[in-house]
């Protein structure tokens, strides 16, 4: 075989690809489910923390700031390993899927809280005062006046952060989750050919190139004129 032929045989082996397409497709579905669960839970928890923080209870806020800092400083893989390989020592065993979901949800929660909070504090004080003086309560002001303004400016940074964290679903392969990378790696070891890995890389591109383009569009669409 010539060099080019052996390259094609290794990385674009159609026979191998066809054989492992169903496995990768299943991995694709699992990645999408995992990513959606992380996005929904992480963004919701982050917003909840930011709202609680706006009550201004000092001791509680220290706690929130510490948790947020903690999950911003720890590499996601370290949290996954800690949950998956560490927790059994405490008699709690969780699946690789649960460990990956929980870790990335906590990380997204931390980053989202920070962004929401920056958005809330960026709303001028006068907005609060004006809303309160019309007779709105604290929560009504937050919900009807402050959050709508705050959320708008958080969209670009939030979108980009969410995309970056969602890509972390590939880390699940380290703890045996058969998402795209996990499926591609088992395909590679069964067939002794890296074509399933090429297929996996293509699957990630199909999934994330539109998302990355969306992130870029959101950034220009919601950009504030300087």
């Amino acid at each position, binding site marked *: 075989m010539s060099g080019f032929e052996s390259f094609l045989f290794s990385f674009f082996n159609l026979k191998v690809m066809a054989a492992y397409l169903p496995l990768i497709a299943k991995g694709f579905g699992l990645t999408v489910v995992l990513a959606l669960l992380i996005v929904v839970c992480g963004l919701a928890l982050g917003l909840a923390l930011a709202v609680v923080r706006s009550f201004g209870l000092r001791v509680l806020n220290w706690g929130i700031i510490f948790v947020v800092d903690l999950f911003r400083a720890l590499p996601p893989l370290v949290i996954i390993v800690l949950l998956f390989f*560490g927790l059994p020592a*405490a008699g709690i065993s969780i699946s690789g899927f649960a460990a990956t979901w929980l870790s990335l949800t906590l990380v997204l929660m931390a980053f989202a809280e920070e962004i929401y909070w920056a958005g809330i504090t960026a709303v001028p004080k006068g907005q609060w005062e004006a809303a309160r003086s019309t007779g709105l309560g604290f929560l009504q002001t937050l919900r009807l006046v402050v959050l709508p303004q705050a959320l708008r400016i958080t969209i670009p940074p939030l979108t980009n952060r969410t995309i970056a964290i969602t890509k972390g679903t590939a880390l699940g392969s380290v703890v045996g989750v058969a998402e795209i*990378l996990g499926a591609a790696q088992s395909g590679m070891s069964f067939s002794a050919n890296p074509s399933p890995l090429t297929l996996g890389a293509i699957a990630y591109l199909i999934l994330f190139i539109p998302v990355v383009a969306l992130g870029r569009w959101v950034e220009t669409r919601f950009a504030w004129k300087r």
Partner: protein
Amino acid sequence: MQDFAFAFLNLEIVREAWPILWSGFLYTVALSLMTVPLGLLGGVALALLATSGPRAVRLAAAGWTDLFRAIPPLVLLVFLYAGLPFAGFDISAWGAVAIGFFLNTGAYYGEVLRAGIESVPRGQMEAARSTGLSRGQALAHVVLPQAVRNVLPDLISNTLEVVKLTSIASVVALPELLFQARQAQSVTYNATPIVAAAVAYFLLLWPLVRLVSRLENKAMAGR
């Protein structure tokens, strides 16, 4: 409670595993010190190509950036480490990590720096050129310094992410902090080394997290 302390906060185990954890910590620091400049270099090159080359080059640079921002770094790493040997390129774990991290972090730094360069008004370049500076001089002395200042929070935040990224080198058995902690865990049958590694990451990166958080709050309040 005592069981918990024994399994997760066991000082005896920390003392036993200290040398291996410390060597992992140093490896992580060294890996970061290698990856950050490499990524910055690639990022500057990409940003310059994406903002000032001919149209075809600009599009190619933007496409390259999106490609490597869309592929999870772990996928890239596995591809380089486990896939390439099939094509006869036997690269070491170290080589796979260096190339993979360079491609990934270069794309991210490139995107940040591109936004920075685009935030500098065109008149700055024109004014600089009209004083007799060459294109390269105008870029180096006028445009890039302002561009970097404008996106400094994002640059620092990205650097934080790069240091965290080094933990995935454990997957290809480079002896960095997480890998060493896993080794220590499997030798001692105790989860304390992983907790210790988490604490080490936190202590290393907390100052950076605080700094980024302050800069980001300021940036959003200044809108």
